[in-house]
C-alpha cells in the first residue's frame, strides 16, 4: 500500500477543515472497502486519508416526519440491513443490501460510501436513482442537497467536490400501492452484477400503472434509468404484455459496455429478461400487500 498521511478527525468541523485544506489530495475513509483494495493494488495513491469513522452523529438512521429515511455517512451495510426502519420505509434498499458483496464486506462497508464511490455495477447507486434519493453534501461553511439524477456524473465520479463530504442520503417516502424488486445476475454470488435492475412500480387506485422506475446497474458508465420504458408502462394494465414491451424498449435503448463477463449483446438481452422478472415480482408484492 502506498504511503499517506492519516487523519482521524474527532468532529465534523475538523473533518471539513481537513478536506478544505487538502482538496484533491485527500480521500475520505469510512469503511474503506472500496478504497483500500484500490490502494492495496497501488491503483490509488491519495496523499491524505481522512477517517470519518469517529465523527459523532454520522452513524445514524433517521426517520423523517413524512415517512422518509436518512442514512448517515458511517452506517454500515450490515447495520442498515438489520434496521427495522429500512425494511419498513425503504423496502428497495432492504432488498438490495444483501446483494452487496459478502458479509465481511458489508460489516465494514458503508451505504453512503458505496454511493460516493459510484461504481456503475454496484446495487446502491441504482437504488438511489430509482428512488429519487437526495444527497446531503457538506463542506466548510455550506451544505447542499443534490438529487440522485444529478449526483452520478460518470464512471466512478459524482457531483461531489473534493472538499465536500457526503453527510447522508435521504430516501423519500414510498408511494402507496408500490412494489419493488432488485434483480441481478452476477458470475458468482456476491460479485458485482453483470447487469442488474432496481425497479419500483406504483399503481393507481384503478390498478393501472401510475409510475415506475427502471434503474439499471452494470449497463452503462453510471447507474442509468430507462425513461422510455417507464413512460411506456404508465397507464398500462400491469401484466405480461406491458412488461414484455418494457423489456423490449430496455433491450433496445441500453448500450452497455463489454467485458469478459458479458458482451454488449448479452447485457442488452439480459436487461430485458430482468425487466420482465422484476416488474412481475414488484407487482406480486403489491398484490400481497393488498
Amino acid at each position, binding site marked *: 500500500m502506498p504511503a499517506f498521511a*492519516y487523519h482521524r478527525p474527532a468532529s465534523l468541523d*475538523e473533518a471539513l477543515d481537513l478536506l478544505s485544506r487538502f482538496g484533491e489530495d485527500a480521500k475520505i*475513509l469510512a469503511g*474503506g472497502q472500496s478504497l*483500500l483494495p484500490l490502494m*492495496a493494488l497501488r491503483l490509488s495513491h491519495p496523499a491524505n486519508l481522512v477517517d470519518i469513522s469517529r465523527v459523532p452523529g454520522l452513524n445514524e438512521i433517521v426517520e423523517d416526519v413524512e415517512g422518509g429515511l436518512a442514512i448517515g455517512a458511517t452506517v454500515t451495510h450490515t447495520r442498515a440491513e438489520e434496521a427495522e426502519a429500512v425494511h419498513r420505509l425503504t423496502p428497495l434498499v432492504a432488498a438490495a443490501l444483501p446483494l452487496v458483496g459478502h458479509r465481511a*464486506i458489508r*460489516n*465494514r462497508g458503508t451505504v453512503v460510501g458505496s454511493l460516493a464511490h459510484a461504481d456503475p455495477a454496484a446495487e446502491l447507486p441504482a437504488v438511489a436513482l430509482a428512488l429519487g434519493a437526495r444527497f446531503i453534501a457538506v463542506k466548510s461553511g455550506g451544505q447542499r442537497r443534490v438529487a440522485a439524477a444529478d449526483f452520478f456524473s460518470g464512471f466512478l465520479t459524482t457531483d461531489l467536490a473534493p472538499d465536500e463530504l457526503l453527510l447522508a442520503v435521504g430516501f423519500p417516502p414510498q408511494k402507496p400501492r408500490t412494489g419493488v424488486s432488485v434483480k441481478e445476475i452476477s458470475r*458468482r454470488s456476491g460479485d458485482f452484477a453483470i447487469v442488474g435492475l432496481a425497479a419500483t412500480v406504483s399503481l393507481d387506485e384503478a390498478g393501472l400503472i401510475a409510475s415506475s422506475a427502471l434503474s439499471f446497474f452494470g449497463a452503462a458508465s453510471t447507474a442509468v434509468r430507462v425513461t422510455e420504458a417507464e413512460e411506456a408502462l404508465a397507464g398500462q394494465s400491469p401484466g405480461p404484455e406491458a412488461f414484455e414491451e418494457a423489456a423490449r424498449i430496455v433491450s433496445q435503448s441500453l448500450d452497455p459496455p463489454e467485458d469478459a463477463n458479458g458482451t454488449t449483446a448479452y447485457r442488452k438481452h439480459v436487461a430485458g429478461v430482468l425487466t420482465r422478472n422484476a416488474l412481475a415480482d414488484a407487482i406480486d408484492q403489491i398484490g400481497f400487500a393488498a
Partner: protein
Amino acid sequence: MNSPSATATQSAMGSLHSPIDGTATIELEVNGVGVTRRVNARLSLADFLRERLDLTGTHLGCEHGVCGACTVVLNDEAVRSCLILAVQADGSRITTIEGLAETDHDGQIISIHPIQRAMQEAHGFQCAFCAPGFLMTALCFLERNPAPTRAQIREEISGNLCRCTGYQSIIAGVETAVEIMAADRREGAQDA
C-alpha cells in the same frame, strides 16, 4: 522511521494524525489482551497482527479483499483484516484464530473450540491455509444464527475462498459445529 517529526499528534478532542508515512500509537485488545503499539499509518490490520504481534495464524491470500483468508473478528463482526488499517482498529476488540481455543498462560491449548473440533471431525480442510478465515467467519455466523439451514451456511461462507475442498466438507463441518454447540448448550442448561 521513528523520527519525532514523523510521529502522530493526538489532540485533546481524540483526533489522531500521522504525517505521510508516519506513525501513530494505537491501543486495542487482541485475544483478550490489551496491546499498545506505535504503527505506521499504512500498516494493515493483517500485517499488524502478523508482523507486530507475531499472530501469524491470520493468513493473507489476496490482499485485496476477495478471498477471505485474513478474516478476523472485530467487535463481534467478521471483517477482512487486509482491508482495515491498523490505525482504524484503534480502540477495538479483535479475536484471531489464535484466540479461538482456550489456552493457559503460556499459550498452550487447554481445549479447542467446538468449531475447531467439528472441522477436525468433518475433515473440513486440506492445506488449511484458508481455514482461519473460515473459522472466524463461522464463529460470528453461529453467534448470530445458532441453527442455520444448509443454504444459509453456503451463503454465509461464500465470501471465503477455498481451493482444496469444493466446500462440501467445510459445510459439513459447520453443521457438525452446530450440533456440538447445541449439545454443549443443552448440557450447560442442565448444569445450571
